[in-house]
Structure formats: C-alpha cells, structure tokens
C-alpha cells in the first residue's frame, strides 16, 4: 500500500452503531441453518483447510512444535483426500523450528508478536520482535493491539502502532488481534475493526485465546460486517480470524454459514478466513470419519498433536 502523508485514526462516532439484540438474533438465524450430507462434508474439509493449528504455551518445546508441524501436514492419513491446515501458529522462539519442519509443504508459519498476549511493551520492542520473527521465517504476524490505550481513548496511538507494525512486517501478512473480550461492547469491537483495517491490517482477529470470552459468533459477525463495509468502500479485501473457544465441528460450520451469508464466495478460502484453534481439527476429523463409516470413533483413534 502506498504510504500516505497523514493518516488519521477513525473516531468512535465515525464507526456505525451496533445493536447487540439485533446481532444476537441474526446469529440465532445462522445457527438455525441445518447443514447435512454432502454440504456437511464440503464444509468440514473447508474448516480443516482454514485452521491455524496453534500452540502458545510457556512450556512449548522444539519437540512439541515438530510434532504439531507433522500433524499440520498429515492430519489423519487414514482419511484420503483431506486438505492440510492453513498455518501453524507459534511464539517467535519457535518460528525457526516450525519453518524447518514444514519445509515446502505450503503450510504457513504464523508467529504471534508484539508482547503477546498483553501487548504491554514499548512500541520499539514490539517492532523489533516483529522484525525478528520475520527474519526467522514467519509468513504471518499475529499482533495484539494496545487495549489499554484504546480504552483510554488514545486511538491515534493505537492506530500509529498498527501502521508501524505493518511496515515492520515487510512481506509478511499482518493479523491484528483486537482481544474483543477486553473491549466490552460490540460498538467498540466495530470501532476497533475499522481502526485496524484503515491502519493496514491484512486480517483482523478476535482474540489471543488467553482471555475469556474469546471468539464468539456475535463478535465475529460484527467484525465480518466491518470487513464487508470496508470492502464496499474501498474494494480491498481484509481477512477474518476468530480464535479461541471454537473446538467443535458443528460450531465451526455455523461460523462458515455466517461467513457465507455475510461476505459470500470470495472469502470462503484459507486466504481470507482462518480458525485459530488447537483441538478443533480432531473433532472435524472425527465427523469426517463418521460421514464415511456411519459410526463415531473414540478420540483415541486420532493423534492428539
């Protein structure tokens, strides 16, 4: 994107109003959709291809990351014709290991950065962390916004930080985590979405997974509507990543219903929609196996990671 001389952060009253009751009702309609038979299999395969398989623990080891990468490439070999996941999401310390393990598989390495999950570090430190992660081979950077500053009303500072992070990313894609569980209202979710997109986010993402509530359908709907309106205005597509709390295939399919009926065909791909999840993949595999054989297998038939 061409650099502009002055970029001004949108103010809260420049973001459209959101009515919580209406959002909840719309979500209930998505959840009333009944996805069966071949449309279910198609959806389950799409979900798999959109997963950012994630491990973000203090106790992560190179060995665990190698295991996760193996799983990312070969989800379940006894099921033919299933896709691999979209990306593996790790801390910067693990990027090199992941990059090596994934090799030329086409699976992206996403790294959280910017003092994840709190974001409580000086901007300078955050930018250095991004640069480091990119140097180590990260294809995608998942940054967190400074929620404290956002809630204080220092929108321009939050905005400028995202702009700087985007620049630090270079070729890497930038996902901006709003941590909606700390924003409190859907009006703020909508405002933060506008702000992040205008600052240059390639993706907007709900949560770190470290705060409850993490991703919810109402929050995701408001963000999808922000993406849609931004596209209507500018023609630029922004991706969406709900993360945390989506562990069941059925719920993931309802997210896809919501995506399909809000943004349509163009977003129905791993390029534009991701699930940040660790245990979702196995539930999807279990459902796919059930569609093939008619019976459920116990979770011991699927590798944990």
């Amino acid at each position: 994107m061409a650099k502009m001389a002055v970029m001004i952060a949108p103010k809260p009253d420049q973001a459209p109003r959101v009515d919580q009751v209406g959002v909840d009702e719309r979500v209930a309609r998505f959840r009333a959709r009944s996805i069966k038979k071949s449309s279910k299999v198609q959806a389950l395969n799409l979900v798999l291809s959109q997963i950012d398989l994630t491990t973000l623990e203090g106790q992560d080891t190179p060995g665990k990351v190698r295991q996760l990468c193996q799983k990312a490439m070969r989800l379940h070999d006894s099921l033919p014709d299933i896709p691999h996941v979209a990306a593996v999401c790790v801390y910067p310390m693990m990027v090199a290991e992941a990059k090596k393990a994934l090799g030329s598989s086409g699976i992206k390495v996403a790294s959280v950065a910017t003092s994840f999950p709190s974001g409580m570090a000086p901007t300078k430190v955050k930018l250095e962390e991004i640069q480091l992660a990119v140097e180590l081979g990260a294809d995608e950077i998942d940054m967190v916004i400074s929620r404290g500053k956002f809630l204080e009303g220092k929108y321009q500072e939050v905005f400028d930080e995202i702009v700087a992070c985007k620049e630090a990313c270079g070729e890497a894609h930038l996902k901006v985590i709003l941590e909606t569980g700390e924003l409190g209202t859907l009006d703020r979710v909508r405002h933060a979405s506008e702000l992040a997109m205008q600052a240059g986010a390639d993706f907007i993402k709900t949560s770190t997974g470290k705060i409850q509530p993490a991703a919810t359908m109402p929050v995701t709907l408001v963000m999808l509507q922000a993406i849609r309106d931004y596209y209507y205005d500018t023609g630029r597509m922004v991706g969406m990543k709900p993360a945390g709390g989506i562990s069941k295939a059925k719920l993931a399919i309802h997210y896809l219903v919501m995506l399909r009926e809000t943004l349509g065909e163009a977003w129905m791909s791993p390029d534009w929609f991701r699930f940040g999840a660790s245990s979702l993949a196995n539930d999807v595999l279990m459902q796919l196996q059930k569609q093939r054989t008619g019976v459920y297998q116990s979770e011991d038939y699927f590798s944990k990671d």
Partner: protein
Amino acid sequence: MNKRIAPHKLNFDTGWAYSPAPESIDHVHIKDQYKLFIGGKFVAPKAGKYFNTINPANEKVLARVAQAGATDVDRAVNAARGAYDNIWSKMKPAERGKYIYRIARIIQERAREFAVIESVDGGKPIREARDVDIPLAAAHFFYYAGWADKLNYAFPCRTPQSLGVAGQIIPWNFPLLMAAWKIAPALACGNTVVLKPAETTPLTALKLAEVIEAADLPPGVVNILTGDGSTGAAIVNHDDVNKIAFTGSTNVGRIIQHALAGTDKKYTLELGGKAANIIFADAAIDQAVEGVVNAIFFNQGHVCCAGSRLLVQESVADEVVFKLKERMQTLIVGDPLDKNTDIGAINSAAQLERINAYLDLGQEEGAEMFQCGGKNPDKGYWCQPTLFTNVAQSHRVVREEIFGPVLAIQTFRTLDEAVAKANNTQYGLSGGIWTDKGAKIFNVGAKIRAGVIWANTFNKFDPTSPFGGYKESGVGREGGMHGLSAYLDLH
C-alpha cells in the same frame, strides 16, 4: 457519515450450497377425511359436503374436510350453549384454569407434529412454524390459564362476568396461533366457543380438536366447524351467539360490522394493516436491514402487522436499499419443510393472483421493482421477495394491503415528514422505529397512530402484550389483560 454508494458487490452464489434438510414427517398423522367437532364428538356435516385442503407448496390434496352448513352451525351453537349453561359457567374458575393448562401442555408435547402440519397446510417455513407459531400458541394457553381464577384481580372493584357463547372466525396466516388467541381468553373468562378456521388451513384446528378431546374438556365447551365464508356468516348471524371475534380482511370485517349493527352481540375485529417501518440515519443500519427483512418477509408477508412500507431517512437511503438487496440474495425460497427455507409458499392460488396483480399494478404506476431473480419450484404457489422503489404516497402499492412479500420503500428528510407519511394511511395496526436515540423512540412512538410500535425490532409477539388496531385495522384488543375484557361483561 457512513454513506456508502457501494461500487463493489459481493458474490453470494457460492460453490458451497446447503444440501436439502427436510424435516422428518414420519410422526405426523393426517386422516383422509375430517368431520366437524361438535359437542365433544366428530360428526358428519348434515348436508354431507366435503372440500379439499391442499399443500400450497405442491398442490397435492392433504385431506378432505367437512363443509359446515347453517344446520351444523345451529347444532354447534346449541352444544356450546348447553355446555355454558350447565357446566362451564358454573365451574370453579380454578378448575377451568386446569383444563386450559392441560391444552397448553398437550400442544407442547405434540409441538413437532403441529409444526409440520402448519407448514404443509399453509405453506410457511418449518423454521417459523417450529420456532414461532407453535410455541406462541402454547404460551397463549399457559398465559390465559393463569388468569382464569384471577379475573377479580384483573378488574378490581368490578364484577367480571362471562358473556356466553363466542363465535370465532380466524384467518389462514397463523392458523393454530390465531385459534389460541381466540380460544384461550374466551375459555379463561368462562365462555364457550364455536370456532371456524380458514378454508385453506383447517388442519391444525382439527388437530386442536383432538387435543381438546385428549384434555377431556366437557363436551360442547369448544366446537370447531370447518367451512367457507357462508359458514362464517351463519355463525355471525346466529341469534344465540353473544360475542363475535374475527381476524381477517378489512372487507369482511366491514360486512360483519354491518351484520352486527343493532344486535347486542359484542365484537372484536382484527383487520388489515400497512405498517411503516421508519429507519433514522442514526440507527444501527445492519440490524435495521435485518429488521426490515423480518418485518416484510416473515411468513411470506402474510402478516396483518407486516412492515410493508419502509420509510428511510434520505442520508442513509442508498446504503439501506443497497444492503437490503444484498441481504435478499441469501434468502432461501423453496420447500417449506426444508429447515433452511426462509420464505415458503404463498398460501393459495387466489392469494398469489392477488399479489401478482399488485406486482403488475406497481410497475404500471411507474414504480421500480426489484427481485433477486431466484427460480420458483415448478409446482405450487410462489412469489420471490420484492421491493418497490420510486414510489409516492399516492401509489396503490403504498396505500393498499398486499399481504405478500412485497415492500414499498420511500424516503424522508425530517422527523415530522416521517410521522406524517407513517400516519397517512387508512390503517393503524403496527409500526417500527429504528434509531440509536432512546428519546426519539418515545417521541416518534407517541405520534404514530398504531396499536403496536416496535423499537429496534419488529414482529415480536408475547401473550402478555395487547394487540389491535386504530382506524380500519380493527376494533378492540386481544392479548394481555386487555384481551380479557373482550370476553367479559364488566359491571
């Protein structure tokens, strides 16, 4: 602010289509032929005449249903009178309440069966029958059951007394729900009932007769007669009926009012509407668009309180209309029994003809018509959701009730203009206001002359809330405590 004249459209024709998800119908039992329910028994009509009721989604015959004549009406009224004099009016009110609770519980237990029959007989999507019609019908019985022994508290310092026999004539848009609206308060207040369901949707009322049998109601307390307009006329004109409750068209309402003039029969009439949904520029636009969809496309627009006129403040008009058109791309029109269907079949060939005549008329009058261009199924009666823009107050598609999925859109500049346009109609049943400002809701709400005003939502129903119209939308109120007084003499 936020004015979007969108250059970029979305593509909702995705490679991922939902597979058919039909509701199971194994548990549903529809007999080949239904008789009349009089005095607690199913009896053949005197003249031996029957007519077909069909599934409007495929035009197949579902059952043959009795045509009640004047003699049958007389028998039913006599049964109701006998039950009133000898049993129901003398029963302890708390006992009456028990019977009504029992009806409510049996409807809940058989909710799935009722939902399917409502859908196949009337054409409405199973999702609506399952999530709205049937639960609300049960809720009405539960609510009024509670009032049966508390009438003195509802009307303190007065002596509420039942009226006698109530003749009740209901429409085809919410067959079971309208039966519940009518029967529940009548019974709670100590009256007995002769009910006539609409000609095109008699089946759930006949199923309700089975429920009433199962609930062991004393014979004659509720009588259900199927038939056409002549059956309704015989009920209205019967000398021994004390009260008429009618829901239906304004034209028939007028005929009934004529017939009742000079008699001492009490009456309530719930008639047509042409409600205005008003969107102000400060509204939550995405939720308002969704509200418009629910207001006009719910039940194929066969709703007397449908928001069939949209008034949008001009600064957001382009955005609202654009988003509405985009939203309409994802509405699924088709098999009412499919759980994913949003818009089902038009109730009857006659109604479809009426709607299509208005579609032609609107275009002749110079309005701009928009439809998504979806394909209708080969059999059955279908109408794609439709918008009319470029219309004025004088257009007939703005003035007259179409009773189909057809929305007329106008713009306004000031609040006063919105109010003037909203009120400039012969009807006054409902209205909607969409704004982020609480004060504006009360300001505008107080100025709209309609019985129900919804704020930032639409088509919400609850048994505790009164419902009824101004002007040609009707006389009297149903629902809530107000609905009790329609079935009582208050001394």
